[in-house]
């Protein structure tokens, strides 16, 4: 898994949008880093997400997967408070309770392409910054595509 850096990070910092109790009360959603899952030989796509101390953010807050399928997240709470995660999953969302300094896993099945959000559904963790994205690339199977020539995209 890798993270990306950009001028945007500096802009968000200068505007006081990338932390707790700076310009606003919480951290603006989607201002964390970007990470990429790695696909194992077993076809499972894996990534690790952490909650850094006092930041109330999932880091990276945007995880990119090459396509839909089975994923396995390692979730680490490095914060000195208790949080949780409710994550999208076909069949039923999954929940994991994460006390201070804890580590767990979530195995999920999600279709792609498209974006899903998850968050810590305790208090207003979600509003303070603990809302993050799982982004799936790829295309639908050929059998699901329309019988027509390729069309322009934005």
């Amino acid at each position, binding site marked *: 898994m890798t993270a990306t850096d950009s001028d945007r990070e500096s802009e968000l910092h200068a505007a006081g949008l990338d932390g707790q109790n700076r310009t606003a009360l919480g951290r603006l959603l989607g201002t964390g880093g970007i990470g990429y899952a790695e696909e194992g030989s077993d076809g499972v796509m894996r990534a690790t997400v952490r909650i850094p101390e006092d930041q109330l953010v999932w880091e990276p807050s945007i995880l990119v997967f090459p396509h839909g399928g089975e994923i396995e997240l390692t*979730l*680490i*709470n490095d914060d000195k408070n208790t949080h949780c*995660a*409710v*994550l*999208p*999953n*076909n*069949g*039923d*969302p*999954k*929940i*994991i*309770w*994460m*006390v*201070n*300094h*804890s*580590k*767990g*896993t*979530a*195995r*999920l099945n*999600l*279709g*792609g*392409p*498209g*974006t*899903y*959000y*998850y*968050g810590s*559904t305790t208090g207003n963790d*979600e509003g303070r910054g603990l*809302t993050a994205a799982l982004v*799936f690339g790829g*295309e*639908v*199977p050929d*059998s*699901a*595509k*329309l*019988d*027509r*020539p390729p*069309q*322009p*995209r*934005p």
Partner: protein
Amino acid sequence: MTDYVDAGEAVPHKTLSAVKGQAPQVSNVDYERIQNAASEPHNWITYYGTYDAQRHSRLDQINKDTVKRLSPAWVFQAGSTGLHSGSSTYSFEASPLVVDGVMFVSGPEGKVWAIDGKTGEELWRYKHASPYDVSLCCGNVNRGVAVGHGKVYMYTLNAHLIALDAETGDLVWDVTNGDVRAGESGSVAPLIVKDKVIVGSAGGEFGVRGHLDAFDAQTGERQWRCYTVPKPGEPGSETWPDDGEAWQRGGANCWITPSYDPELELLFQGTGNPAPDFDGGVREGDNLYTDSTVAIDVNTGEIRWHYQFTPHDLWDYDSTMENLLFDAPDGRKLLAHADKNGYFFVLDRTNGELVRVFPFVDRITWGDISPDGKVTPKVYPDEEGVPVHFWPGPAGGKEWTHMAYSPNTGLIYVPVQEVGATATRRRREFKESIPYWGAGVAVDLDDHYGFVAAIDPLTGEEKWRWRNEYPMCASTLTTAGGLVFQGTPTGEFVALDEQTGEKLWSFQCGSGHHSSPMSYSIDGRQYIAVPTGWGGWVEGFLPGLLGAAAGDALFVFALPEN
């Protein structure tokens, strides 16, 4: 630093609820049984109650005399967690099904439940995860499930057809049937016919090419696909520009469940608007099979006949709404269709021949249709940047919400919307997944009203109307108790006398109605079920209530047990 505390593995959310995870085994629903659904009025085993889409219950315990004592028996709350697509436009639009006391119903956000029909207890749940960013023209909605072959079938927002085990809610199979990158989605209630599950496309506002599909109910293998816009060289292709690409984005989606005649083995599918909705200059011609009823051979997927209600549509007048099947006193097999364009059509369902057409709304300015079916457009957006006002607006004199038939009166009870709109043509290029309307559209915020019309389909006469301050945006239900049930946009659920239209009972559900009520019975007690929750394409059918309270509760009513 010490080792991390082991937080374990994430578990399904429902394990932290009272949901049982198991429904009692119900008797098998198959093709034979659905054909005879009217003979088991304690159940409601298919979307419209019966294949003919009459939406009539033969139960009569709740009737003109007893309805005044009708009270809530239980309420089920859908609820939601976290961010989901269309989070401001969700609506509880479904028609529940009931088999042997177990209710199967879908809600917004990919949810399906099995519920004890007597107590409201949640037996199992399944939630299909759909992306937050899926293209949805008209909200986060689902109109219902199909039950049969031991399974529950749902078509999801991201255009997957899924089959669940009816006893446990566990996934049996999941087939991707639409291209979300092209703007396709799914909202229709599937229909079981023979060994097939039938579903249709949604995405007409994004320039997709409409289709209806049949899948093997056991395996999920596609058996046929019927495109409702022909390719060059196919019958109907002459109604599209010769040298253009318009057919590739032509629309004609099939987002409402077809009715079905087992003798003719024909599905009667309504099709959606052409794309772009309001800019006809890029798609000269009649644009078949948009805005039509198409009769499709259920065995092969071939179109046997069609009838187009609004050729070369310039007003967004989908004809997806139901085709209600009934027989004339002389035995002629007929089909009734109340179109968005404000006209009520009666066709011979064996061949598509027009039997009768007449207006069922008060205000029609877009054009007119003569008694012999000749369509004359009068007011339409054809000049770039020039606003044009017309009635009915793009949600139509009646939208997808369904009418119902009473075999007792021979009348059809139609939920009517009187809302106009202004469209200003604004040509734009086509790009996949981007809305492709070809106009700016503003639906009237005032000067609107609605009514339930009791219409004789054999004469065109309106026998009575029950007028309401706001348009009617929910399906009607008739019962053998002589009642017509109707939900209003302001939350009232009312029972009307089918003979006179007199209001006999009402209950305030707390949020507007945009769904399809149904009836069933358990142990001799009759229930009326209605999902509530104002939402969906409110900006299209009643923007004057865009600020009304949302909701997602299923109300079930019955007479007091004592």
